[in-house]
């Protein structure tokens, strides 16, 4: 019996008097799972706990059998869990290439001495990194100049760059927080094609937070619904869509296209 790739049990988080998450379980083996729910349901809080930005008050999180709670975000990244952010958090004044290179930091085996002495090992490693970064940019569909400064990229490209950066450390699990926010239906569809290809080619597992229901239905293997910090439904997309509790939580908009909300 192998341990699940990613397993969260009984995750609880309180902010002062407010309980943001209450006894949330979440298990993922492979494929694409989506987490949906009304604003304020606790989705990003859950991501923040998974990636070490917040500490959970109760519960446990494990990745490939290793407990994640108490680890720093950079340690979790090094283990193979990477993420993007709800509001784009690229390194705005660095180039696209540099953004991706920073993402590789956890995998670079060089020591300060190698850097200073410029040993052949340094040059080889850097060359390999640059080549890999360029390849990653292409894979996510960024065909422009890799030396373009991140803040000058069009919005859709910025979102793709964030994904490229998150892939840089070669994760086994990728957490994407509203990756299609602000995109047109066409763009969102393209992005979903990209995500499916990544899962197929790289053997990635994906957890998405999404408000775009069409995207969620099309691409997810499984959907989890949070409301007011609790899991109220989980299962294949069609089932969840028809679940009366879910419809109630969304006030009946599950079938309709939700407009992405502005940043909280």
């Amino acid at each position, binding site marked *: 019996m192998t341990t699940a790739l990613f397993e969260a049990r009984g995750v609880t988080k309180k902010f002062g008097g407010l309980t943001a998450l209450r006894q949330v379980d979440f298990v993922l083996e492979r494929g694409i799972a989506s987490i949906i729910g009304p604003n304020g349901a606790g989705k990003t809080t859950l991501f923040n706990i998974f990636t070490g930005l917040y500490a959970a008050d109760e519960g446990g999180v494990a990745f490939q059998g290793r407990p994640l709670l108490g680890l720093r975000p950079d*340690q979790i990244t090094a283990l193979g869990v*990477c993420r993007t952010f709800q509001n784009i958090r690229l390194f705005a004044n*660095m180039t696209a290439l*540099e953004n991706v290179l920073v993402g590789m*930091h956890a995998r*670079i085996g060089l020591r300060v001495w190698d850097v200073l002495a410029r040993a052949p090992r*340094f040059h080889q490693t850097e060359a390999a990194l640059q080549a890999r970064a360029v390849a990653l940019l292409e894979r996510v569909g960024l065909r422009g100049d890799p030396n373009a400064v991140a803040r000058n990229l069009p919005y859709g490209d910025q979102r793709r760059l964030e994904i490229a950066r998150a892939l840089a450390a070669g994760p086994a699990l990728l957490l994407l927080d509203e990756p299609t926010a602000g995109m047109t239906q066409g763009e969102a569809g393209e992005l979903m094609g990209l995500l499916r290809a990544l899962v197929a080619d790289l053997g990635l597992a994906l957890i998405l937070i999404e408000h775009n229901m069409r995207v969620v239905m099309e691409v997810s293997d499984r959907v989890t619904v949070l409301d007011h910090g609790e899991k109220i439904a989980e299962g294949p997309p069609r089932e969840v869509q028809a679940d009366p509790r879910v419809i109630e939580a969304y006030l009946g908009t599950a079938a309709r296209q939700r407009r992405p909300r502005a940043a909280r």
Partner: protein
Amino acid sequence: MTRAALAIGLIAASAWAVATFPRSVLAFLLFQGSLLHAYLAPIPRWLRVALLAAALLVLMPVIGAYNGYYLEVATQVGIFVALALGLNIVVGLAGLLDLGYVAFFAVGAYSWAIFGSPHANLIFGGGFPLAAGWFWAFLVVGLLVAAGAGVLLGLPVLRLRGDYLAIVTLGFGEVIRVLANNLDKPINITNGPKGITPISRPPVPFDVSYAEAFYFLVLAIVGVVILVNRRLEDSHVGRAWEAIREDELAAQAMGVPLVRSKLLAFACGASFAGVMGVVFSAKQVFINPESFTFLESIGVLAMVILGGMGSIPGAVVGATVVTVLNLQVLKGLSLWLNELKNAGVTVFGLSLADLPTQLEPAKYERMIFGMILVLMMIFRPQGIFPVRRRARELAGKS
């Protein structure tokens, strides 16, 4: 072709001017300007390197023969260039506002001062000063001690947010100053406000004068510091620092270990100051706590801000401009004003001799630093030589 001729011509002409008018501050400033021009002018790289090498390695010492003070200025500039480059790593690359940077300079300086002078006999009873040759070993000692101090300071404070970090580092700088002033009892470590002297100088080969020897030593160290800076910048270390500066949270989420990276920045920056501290104390032969105050920390900050945070040529130019301003322009103004007073010159019917004696332009360093900081922040926060220019330069070349 004409560009090259212009560059060569400017250097040659200004060097000649200095040789002919050794007392003219203006001529020396022109010489420095010609070096800056050679650095910036669109001339072939080999010519740029050749000109700067010739100017710094040959012309400058020759000028020093005409007016020793200029060599002294050049050496001081070199010392502050190294300090500015060190602070540049901390403030410019990693984005940590260190207001107590001079503490690392002090630590390095005192490390050689204590053991390289008879002062250590007061602590250990005998056997000091160490043979002058130990100076070279102490360059490394100073580096390590300062780096250690950087790590010690960094560990508790690196989690603080930007403005609090600034104030705490300021406090640390002041603590070092007060310690330097007062650690003459119960054990006399620093000899308090009296300072430590005489500090040994390293043995010098051939018939070279100490002034020249120190000039070349400082030049060599600055060269190494620039090299180290460049190599760190162009690596995953430099990229991590820039990422931290841009968005600390995102950097950490992408796998950059925050504390370790910041500590590395602190340690690197501190180590440059430590090495130069050792050189400084050997050069001055006498040090006391007066050289290591908040004024000096802010002076180095002004240099980095003026030149451009994170920019290596910026730090060099900033350090040069500010040091020259203080050592030459302000001082020159003071001297000139005195000459005018003595000559009985009048302005608008008022005799300059009636000017208050307390009014000495040379003492107004704070006003200069203050104006630099405020004006740069309001009008050109990226500095004279902003960083991205280099990236565009590189992109153009590839």
